Structures are given as structure tokens and as C-alpha cells.
């Protein structure tokens, strides 16, 4: 903390600041809001908080450029170019992140939102934004800056709306990279090396992270971002057919698990929502004591952010060596007796391999359908985040145990004690 303070003092020494009291108040209020939000958030809701933090950062960068423009007015060409870049990128990151937040917080639908003529409108807005930017550089006028700000905000919204829930993590990462670039550009505007370096670091690392994640989802970034433009609006929604499913009791499940040789647990976001990580760990420990081989299979996009599930399980003190990544665990399913899927759906949906019309087609999945028996703990037959029906649910070797993941797991644990 002392080092930080020293840096801050050194940073501002020699610069005369007006409005110091007001600045300190704003700084204090912002810090308190940020710290409280970060302390209070549940780990399950953390991705949307990160999205929100990212958004306000982008907004701050855009505002910095606007104020610098108002105070110093028309300077040289480079200054104007970077001001425009900061405003556009910052504003897009801001409004895009807010929409992402709304999607993840489920304040709006997490399905892709396809507005009529969405693609042409979005492209038009993008062109108008760029054209406005060029115009502002050549002929700086105040109203133009306001218009540019509005257009950029609109573009951010249009750009995130059609992205499906399952792809939102990639978008968070991309917007994060964009905010980084906006901050870097604002560093150029202010002739400030610290902002330039920090912003560029985030921009570069964010871009790489985004590509890595798109690769983990098994398709190019462009199809993630623009996929919904081409897909039919209705194609994504489950058809709700009345095929028979086999549901079992907690006792059945306990017997299956207790007498198996090898069990793989597939935790999904539903597990986290039910706060059942600890109960699952308890179950895993009991099975291990009985001599059952237990592993956790973690899909790279399990949860709402890459690596999110690892954080959640780490919170529940699950031993690290039991967490297996997808490539490592997939060959193991065929020699596994029982797979227990808790609150996951899309990441085990074979439609990703077989159904070319599915929005998740091409995404690498955990091949749970290769196991001898599959048990799903589910709240209902409702399809997952991506809104697609899962054929494994109707497979004769699949047993469903309906109910809240935590209740179900607690019952299974209780039954297991009696076996």
C-alpha cells in the first residue's frame, strides 16, 4: 500500500491540480463503491461484476478524452485522432459491457436478441461511427463529438445484443481488451506513458485471451460475434417434445454411485447457483473412501467465464489434482461407470458434434454419452443457457434426478451413508 501511495505522490508531483478537494471526494466515493461491490459479490455472480467494472473503466476513458477535448480544444491532428479513438472504443466498451451485465444478471434474456434488419442496421451504425470519427478529426465541432458518443454507445449495444449467452464470456474478454486499448489511446491523448503501457498490456493480453477462448469453444471469433446474425431466430429454442425420460430417486443414484468403480463428476453453473459445491465435495470424499475412483471434469467454459468453475470449486476446497480438463478427461468416459452431471447442460450436449443447425455446433464438449450410465441432477427439463434440447437426457442409459442440486446431493449423500 505504501508503494502505491509513493507512486501516486511521485506521479502528481510537479503537476498543479485544480479542484483537488472534489477530485479526492470522487476518488473516495468510487473506491468505496468498488470495494463494497467487490467484497459483497458472490463468486457465482462475479463475471457480471467484472463486466460492469470493465464497462465503467471504458466509460471513464471515453470521458477523459471528452474532457481533454473540451479543455484543450483543437490541437494537432494526432491528438484528435487519438481522442476520437478513445471516445469510440471507450463508449462501445461501456455500453457493450452494460448489456453483457444485463444478460448475465438475467435482467434481460440471455438468448441472442435478433432485431429485424439487425445486421444492416449494425453495419450502418458502425460505418456512421467511423465516418463521424473521421469527420471530427478533419473538422472538429462540439455537436459532432456528442453525436459520435451517442453512435458509439448505440453500436456497443447492437454489437452485444445478438451474442448468445454461452458466448458472453468471450465478449467480456473482448470488451476488456477494448477498454485496454481505449485507455492506451487516452494515454496518448494525455501524453502519459503509464496509461499507455497499462492500457496496451491489457489490450494485447485481452486480445490473445479472447482468441484462446474462441479456440476453446471450437470456432472462429467471427462466428461467435456474428453467428446470430445468420442463424434463424427460432432455430435456437428447444422444441419441447414429449419424449419419455427416466427419472430416479436419490436412493437409486446413491446405489449406482456407491457400487461403481469409476465416477466422473461434471459440475456446471447450476451447481454454483445452488451453492452445492461443498455438498458435491462431500459426496466425492465419501465415494473415494469407498474405493471409488472420482474425478471432476471441467469444461473450459463451464460457468460464465473461462476458468470460472475452477474458482468456484477452489472456493469449496476441492483438491486440485482431481480437477481434470476436457482434453485430459474425454478419453476416460468410455471406461467410466457413472457420470454425474450436476447443473450442466450445454457443455455435455452431443448436438455440438452432430447437429449442424445448433448454435453450439462445433464447440468441443465433454463426451458423457460415452459412459456406461449418466445421471443428471436437474431442476427441470428446461434447456440450458444456449437454449438447445439435449439428446442425452432421453437416452435409455440416462437417469434424471429432479430438484435443486443441493437438496438432491444432500439426499444422495444421506442415502449413500446407509449403503
Amino acid at each position, binding site marked *: 500500500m505504501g508503494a502505491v501511495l509513493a507512486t501516486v505522490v511521485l506521479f502528481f508531483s510537479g503537476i498543479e491540480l485544480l*479542484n483537488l478537494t472534489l477530485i479526492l471526494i*470522487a476518488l473516495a466515493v468510487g473506491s468505496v463503491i468498488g470495494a463494497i461491490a467487490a467484497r459483497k459479490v458472490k463468486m457465482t455472480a462475479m*463475471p457480471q461484476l467484472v463486466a460492469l467494472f470493465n464497462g465503467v473503466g471504458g466509460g471513464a476513458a471515453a470521458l477523459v478524452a471528452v474532457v481533454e477535448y473540451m479543455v484543450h480544444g483543437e490541437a494537432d491532428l494526432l491528438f484528435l485522432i487519438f481522442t476520437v479513438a478513445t471516445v469510440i472504443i471507450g463508449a462501445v466498451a461501456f455500453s457493450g459491457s452494460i448489456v453483457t451485465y444485463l444478460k448475465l444478471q438475467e435482467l434481460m434474456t440471455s438468448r441472442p436478441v435478433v432485431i429485424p434488419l439487425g445486421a444492416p442496421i449494425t453495419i450502418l451504425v458502425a460505418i456512421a461511427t467511423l465516418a463521424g470519427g473521421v469527420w471530427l478529426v478533419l473538422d472538429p465541432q462540439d455537436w459532432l463529438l456528442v453525436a459520435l458518443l451517442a453512435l458509439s454507445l448505440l453500436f456497443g449495444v447492437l454489437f452485444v445484443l445478438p451474442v448468445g449467452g454461452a458466448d458472453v464470456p468471450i465478449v467480456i474478454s473482448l470488451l476488456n481488451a477494448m477498454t*485496454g486499448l481505449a485507455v492506451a489511446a487516452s494515454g496518448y491523448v494525455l501524453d502519459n506513458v503509464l496509461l499507455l503501457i497499462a492500457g496496451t498490456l491489457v489490450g494485447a493480453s485481452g486480445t490473445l485471451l479472447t482468441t484462446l477462448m474462441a479456440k476453446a469453444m471450437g470456432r472462429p471469433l467471427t462466428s461467435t460475434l456474428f453467428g446470430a446474425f445468420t442463424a434463424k431466430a427460432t432455430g435456437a429454442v428447444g422444441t419441447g417434445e414429449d419424449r419419455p425420460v427416466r427419472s430416479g430417486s436419490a436412493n437409486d443414484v446413491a446405489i449406482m454411485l456407491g457400487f461403481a468403480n469409476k465416477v466422473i463428476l461434471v459440475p456446471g453453473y447450476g451447481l454454483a447457483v445452488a451453492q452445492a459445491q461443498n455438498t458435491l465435495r462431500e459426496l466425492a470424499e465419501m465415494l473415494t473412501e469407498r474405493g471409488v475412483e472420482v474425478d471432476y471434469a471441467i469444461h473450459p467454459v463451464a460457468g460464465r467465464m*473461462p*476458468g470460472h468453475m475452477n474458482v468456484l470449486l477452489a472456493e469449496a476446497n476441492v483438491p486440485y489434482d482431481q480437477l481434470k480438463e476436457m482434453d485430459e478427461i474425454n478419453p476416460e468416459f468410455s471406461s467410466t461407470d457413472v457420470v454425474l452431471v450436476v447443473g450442466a447442460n450445454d457443455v455435455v450436449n452431443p448436438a455440438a458434434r452432430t447437429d449442424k443447425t445448433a448454435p453450439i455446433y462445433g464447440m468441443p464438449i465433454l463426451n458423457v454419452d460415452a459412459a456406461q450410465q449418466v445421471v443428471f441432477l436437474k431442476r427441470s427439463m428446461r434447456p440450458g443457457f444456449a437454449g438447445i434440447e439435449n439428446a442425452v437426457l432421453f437416452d435409455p442409459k440416462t437417469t434424471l434426478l429432479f430438484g435443486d442440486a443441493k437438496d438432491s446431493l444432500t439426499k444422495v449423500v444421506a442415502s449413500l451413508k446407509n449403503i
Partner: protein
Amino acid sequence: MDGMALLTIFVLSIFVGFEVVSKVSAVLHTPLMSGANAIHGIVVMGAIIVTGTAEDLLPLILGLLAVLLGAINLVGGFVVTDRMLEMFKPKKTVKAIEGDQA
């Protein structure tokens, strides 16, 4: 500082950014993203500088808003990253102790 120097720094920073991320395991991608998110909260410094030069009311208000938002980004980002990393820490020590006993 002249444009060439800034450009050089820009390019070098890109390399460092790539280098850093490519070494981090997928397991830690969430804290990594959150940490990167916190780093660009440094924009609050820029916000303080511009607000410090604002003499009229409108730029002052916008500048203060930028300071507020930047501070939320910076402080909130670091706190949440810290909370996450904290969860990965204790297990390492537990494992280390178990290792010692074995």
C-alpha cells in the same frame, strides 16, 4: 515525449502483454481477466489529470464522473481479483504441509 518514443513503448507493451498471457494456465483465466480488468482502471490517473485542468462546470462534472468510474474500476477490480486468488492460495499450503508429512 515524442510520438516515436510512445509508439515504441506501445509496441513493446504489446509483446509483454502477449508473453504474459500465453504463460498462464487456463485454470487461472478468470482471475487473469479480472486482474487485467483492474489494471486498466489506472485510467483514473488520467481522469484526475484532466479534472485538475478543468475550469468550466461541464468539463469539471464530466471529469469528476470519470474519476468516480475509474476508481470503481481500479479498486473493485483489484479487490475481486484478490478475493479469487485468495481461494487458490490456502490449498497450496495445505498440500505443501501434506507433502512434508508424507
